[in-house]
């Protein structure tokens, strides 16, 4: 007989029938009825109406029945808080039952009933259970403290439960220790300042002892807790490492990864001269390799972590290339990760093998995988100079296959190879040009155009080729347009006599017919350069480009160090710090690797970065699209970007580079508030350009920057006229129009409420939905007298930015609910961003940089400001706490 019979009752009057059965005198019938109730609950039916009847069954000596009733309580107590009190007595009684199984069950369940009133009654039983003679009850009570803390932290502190929990770390039973550690870690995580886990050498020693005895899960709790400890010197670090390494032989992959985390972190403190350091490095490789034999999901976590580990300590896995070779039946997500690691491990020693593999992959059928394999070949060419020629010939072979996406991908990477090895492989250009017509992806088109422009002097029909692209100029994507503009200007500078017409054509397309400010600005700049000083133009446009460096997609070192501290967790899988995806973790201190101590190394170079590795060992990071110099040299294409998870980090790197570099001098002062730029109703003064190559209206580059710089300092900012937000038709006669304004630091929403109905309106209230910047009413909506028919009232509602935050699309979307005596009405409106900008937007450079780095990538939003001829800057609006800063993200010519 199976339980499935309990699901079959679907007739009407079921609840009534169940009620009768629950109140039956017969034990067996009661139990059957409870099972039916649970079955209904399982399939999602609402059986909360039976609450009192089910609770009545709680007092039973039948354990199975009791468990079911408890289960019911956990599910419905929250919706029936008053009746849940009825259960308290039985709970308290059960906590004193002679059977430890029942005591534990009671304390476990009580913690799961998230009803405030009940928690008070929980304290005494919990106190007893924490001191219970049976370890099974104690280990359950330990977890219950964490549950209770989650519901009412103050209560837990007042009752002294935290101290009792700390005492349990010294419990004689390993499982109790493990759960106490888990509970304390959980509490400490949500209250980082509480200093709960004041780990010291003594408590660490206890934990390390318990590590040998507790279950696999307990070992993970303890290892994760150890990873937060900061040893006082390298000797202590080494002794902890020595006691943690045996865990690398555990069959559970999660235990292994948590042990790897502790070792990777504490290794940071060990001197590289130490014999032990080398031993430890050697010990890490085999378990990491073995993780690749685990279940695919665990392989995936392992690979994402190995990706971090090979960036931090490439020496660990440098001889293990083969294990990352892709197998036919690997899931695609494993294949892609393996490919990424293969490129990271590629070196002169193994490049032949790697290339053979990549070529094999490039002829597979999975499009995403094939594309990535082709890109990988290009990255190998850039990374391992000796192999460049072979890579190029491999790519040419692939182009011959004429498989469309392979060809396009190959052209994109060949462009990068040209950047790395200029004037070396031009012989292939002819082959590339044969495929011109088949290119339909913007990135490939842009790459091809770049190549034609860059080598225009060697391509006889370069002008024809570029002209052919020009026909559909306005249908191209921005990156192709920008590239085409630049390529034709280059061509003109190289072959001025034949191409004057072409360059005029492209300049006019870019400046007059386009409403893309990036494109227009770049057009104007070229135009000015060409018309004022062609020699200077040549120097700028055809300047020697900086070589691109070998490694791509590297994670920025401080982020990498932080992620190493999070090995095995979601952060390590996303390659993002927890603050980027966990709500309420903004205030939490970023984890960082411990500084190296006591070693000769640090004595020699006191200024060395905390990461400890000498700079020469760290491969240089390719400046990505944010690089000013790169922009001027028209390298919009950026380096190859592999998977979506990595792409975000490269954007951040760009940002950091940008701000550390030369741009800040250009943006000298008024980086801050630039209200007018975000303002609405802005009309663009049309800059009229002469049709021929005459000089444009004003001076040189400087003007442009002055212009951008001067926008920022208005005090009383622009206020758009009121528009109707809520038409009367949609709100039973209530019409609302309004606008936003900012006056001396205060934001307000200016509203006009009109009663177009026949009845009097009163009891007005307003509420905002969560929004991107936490905009919220600072005071209630105060309309003192009732609003008579046809009467209008004007009101200014003060706003602040301390409300809950949720990213909206568009970013400045605000959803508003207005209530009156008739109904609740909803509308949404867009607010101009300038109301958020603080007037004193000035910030010290250091502070600005620090603030910028604190902002997780997710919080960066970009939007283009249309019809704004003033500035060439695009704006990234970011929100460190509640202070808004306007940060020009980068110029983009």
């Amino acid at each position, binding site marked *: 007989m199976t339980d*499935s019979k309990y699901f079959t009752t679907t007739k009407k009057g079921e609840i009534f029938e169940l009620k009768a059965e629950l109140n039956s005198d017969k034990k067996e019938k009661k139990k059957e009825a409870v099972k039916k109730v649970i079955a209904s609950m399982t399939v999602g039916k609402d059986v909360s109406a039976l609450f009192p009847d089910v609770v009545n069954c709680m007092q039973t000596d*039948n354990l199975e029945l009791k468990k079911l009733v408890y289960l019911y309580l956990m599910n419905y107590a929250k919706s029936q808080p008053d009746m849940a009190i009825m259960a308290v007595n039985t709970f308290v009684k059960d906590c004193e039952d002679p059977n430890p199984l029942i005591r534990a069950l009671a304390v476990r369940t009580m913690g799961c009933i998230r009803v405030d009133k009940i928690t008070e009654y929980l304290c005494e039983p919990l106190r007893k259970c924490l001191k219970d003679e049976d370890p099974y009850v104690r280990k359950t009570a330990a977890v219950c403290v964490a549950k209770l803390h989650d519901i009412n932290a103050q209560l837990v502190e007042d009752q002294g439960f935290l101290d009792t929990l700390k005492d349990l770390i010294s419990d004689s039973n390993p499982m109790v220790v493990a759960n106490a550690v888990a509970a304390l870690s959980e509490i400490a995580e949500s209250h980082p300042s509480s200093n709960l886990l004041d780990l010291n050498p003594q408590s660490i020693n206890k934990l390390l002892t318990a590590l040998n005895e507790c279950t696999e899960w307990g070992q993970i709790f303890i290892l994760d807790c150890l990873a937060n400890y900061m040893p006082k010197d390298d000797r202590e670090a080494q002794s902890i490492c020595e006691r943690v390494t045996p865990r690398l032989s555990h*069959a559970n992959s999660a235990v292994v990864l948590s042990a790897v985390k502790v070792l990777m972190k504490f290794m940071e403190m060990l001197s590289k001269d130490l014999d032990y350091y080398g031993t430890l490095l050697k010990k890490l490789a085999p*378990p990491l390799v073995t993780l690749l034999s685990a*279940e695919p*999901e665990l392989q995936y976590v392992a690979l994402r972590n190995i990706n971090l580990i090979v960036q931090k300590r490439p020496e660990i896995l440098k001889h293990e290339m083969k294990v990352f070779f892709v*197998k036919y039946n690997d899931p695609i997500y494993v294949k892609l990760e393996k490919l990424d690691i293969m490129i990271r491990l590629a070196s002169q020693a193994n490049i032949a093998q790697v290339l053979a593999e990549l070529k094999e992959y490039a002829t597979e059928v999975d499009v995403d995988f094939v594309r990535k394999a082709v890109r990988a070949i290009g990255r190998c060419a850039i990374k391992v100079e000796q192999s460049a020629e072979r890579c190029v010939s491999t790519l040419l072979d692939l182009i011959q296959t004429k498989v469309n996406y392979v060809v396009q991908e190959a052209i994109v990477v060949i462009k990068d190879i040209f950047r790395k090895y200029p004037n070396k492989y031009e012989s292939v250009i002819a082959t590339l040009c044969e495929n011109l017509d088949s290119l339909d992806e913007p990135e490939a088109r842009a790459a091809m155009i770049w190549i034609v422009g860059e080598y225009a002097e060697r391509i006889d029909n370069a002008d024809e080729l570029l002209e052919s692209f020009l026909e559909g100029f306005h249908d191209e994507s921005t990156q192709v347009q920008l590239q085409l503009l630049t390529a034709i200007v280059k061509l003109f500078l190289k072959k001025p006599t034949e191409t004057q017409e072409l360059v005029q054509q492209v300049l006019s397309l870019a400046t007059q017919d386009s409403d893309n400010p990036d494109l227009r600005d770049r057009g104007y700049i070229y135009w000015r350069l060409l018309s004022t000083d062609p020699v200077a133009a040549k120097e700028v446009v055809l300047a020697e480009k900086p070589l691109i460096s070998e490694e791509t997609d590297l994670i920025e070192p401080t982020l990498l160090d932080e992620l190493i501290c999070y090995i*095995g967790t979601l952060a390590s899988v996303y390659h993002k710090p927890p603050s980027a*995806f966990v709500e309420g973790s903004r205030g939490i201190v970023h984890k960082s690797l411990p500084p190296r101590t006591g070693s000769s190394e640090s004595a020699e170079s006191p200024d060395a970065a905390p990461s400890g590795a000498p700079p020469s060992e760290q491969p240089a990071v390719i400046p990505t699209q944010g690089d000013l110099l790169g922009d001027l040299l028209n390298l919009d294409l950026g380096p190859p970007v592999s998977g979506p998870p990595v792409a975000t980090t490269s954007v951040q790197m760009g940002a950091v580079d940008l701000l550390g570099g030369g741009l800040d001098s250009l943006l000298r002062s008024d980086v801050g508030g630039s209200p007018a730029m975000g303002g609405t109703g802005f009309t663009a003064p049309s800059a009229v350009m002469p049709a021929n190559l005459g000089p444009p209206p004003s001076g040189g580059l400087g003007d442009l920057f002055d212009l951008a710089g001067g926008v920022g300092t208005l005090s009383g900012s622009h206020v758009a006229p009121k528009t109707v937000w809520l038409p009367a038709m949609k709100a039973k006669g209530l019409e609302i129009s309004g606008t936003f304004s900012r006056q001396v630091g205060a934001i307000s929403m200016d509203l006009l409420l009109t009663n177009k109905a026949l009845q009097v309106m009163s009891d007005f209230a307003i509420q905002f939905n969560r929004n991107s910047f936490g905009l919220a009413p600072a005071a209630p909506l105060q309309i003192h007298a009732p609003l008579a028919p046809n009467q209008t009232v004007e009101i200014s509602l003060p706003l602040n930015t301390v409300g809950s935050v949720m990213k909206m699309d568009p970013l400045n979307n605000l959803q508003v609910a207005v209530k009156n005596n008739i109904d609740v009405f909803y509308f949404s409106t867009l607010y101009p961003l300038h109301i958020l900008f603080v007037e004193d937007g000035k910030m010290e450079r250091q502070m600005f940089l620090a603030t910028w780095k604190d902002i997780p990538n997710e919080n960066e939003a970009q939007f283009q400001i249309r019809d704004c001829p003033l500035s060439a800057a695009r704006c990234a609006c970011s929100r460190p706490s509640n202070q808004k800063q306007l940060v020009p993200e980068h110029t983009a010519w």
Partner: protein
Amino acid sequence: MSASAVFVLDLKGKPLISRNYKGDVSMAEIDHFMPLLMQKEEEGALTPLLTHGKVHFLWIKHTNLYLVATTMKNANASLVYSFLYKVVEVFSEYFKELEEESIRDNFVVIYELLDELMDFGFPQTTDSKILQEYITQQGNKLETGKSHVPPTVTNAVSWRSEGIRYKKNEVFIDVIESVNLLVNTNGSVLLSEIMGTIKLKVFLSGMPELRLGLNDRMLFELTGRGKNKSVELEDVKFHQCVRLSRFENDRTISFIPPDGDFELMSYRLNTQVKPLIWIESVIEKFSHSRVEIMVKGGKEFLMRAHFGLPSVEKEEVEGRPPIAVRFEIPYFTVSGIQVRYMKIIEKSGYQALPWVRYITQSGDYQLRTQ
């Protein structure tokens, strides 16, 4: 730290059973799971970790079920996946086969198990043999109200209960080596490794102390026995019961075993061995309607196959699946690993017999085709 809730879903994404452990993630969030999974699959960006807003889904698939854990925290992902697989293991041992039907048929005991397996997101007792001592399928057994927690649950030896008795004390040892091989189209061996496992079937009374002796090279070197006839184990993984620090110190494999079947250890060897089975293949496609596959295996076998095909063609390009080989060779290990001894000591002093069996079999044995 870990999962907020755990769901078992059917293939359409409908929850069959669930358990809310922490209450910080709305249980309704699970409705987003299946649409998200389908969308990601469409985009070719499906990973075992999906995100919807602030909620993260960690999922695995087993037969016609999805097991999904939700969290809003920076959870320990490897712990969650390990746990989900453990849940599958426990359920499978309870219900023989874990699938949609068995979930419905056993929902009462599943709720009980979910309550015992994890508490507030922390995995607890996940050893199914021990669980079976106090959570049984026949609820009737418990009616006496006498059931207690087996002390094993919280013991340092949390995998073996006391008081086990056998008339005949025996241990069966299976040494199983799987050969993984990856051969390129041009016939060069890309990867060749041996994954070994040692499985035990234990019928021993009381709380026996076991010591397993292998011809482990590291051990031989430590004890000055030289390299002769020893095997270098590259990476070794042990069952919970093995004292890892002891192994780390002097390479002794000592343990108190669980009762019955379990996997004591696994090891990996990277030593290049001559491929046990070699295959050459020629696949020729003639026009639209005929494929000829010629497979030459080792020295002795030749297979030639013609396929007459209807002249209908698929538009997409075909993949080139490799030739996978399955085989089993009894009484033989590729690595030459040997069980030198198995010492069994129990305080009652009984004599016990160890029986050893060796098998070599194919693991992931792939030869790519042209």
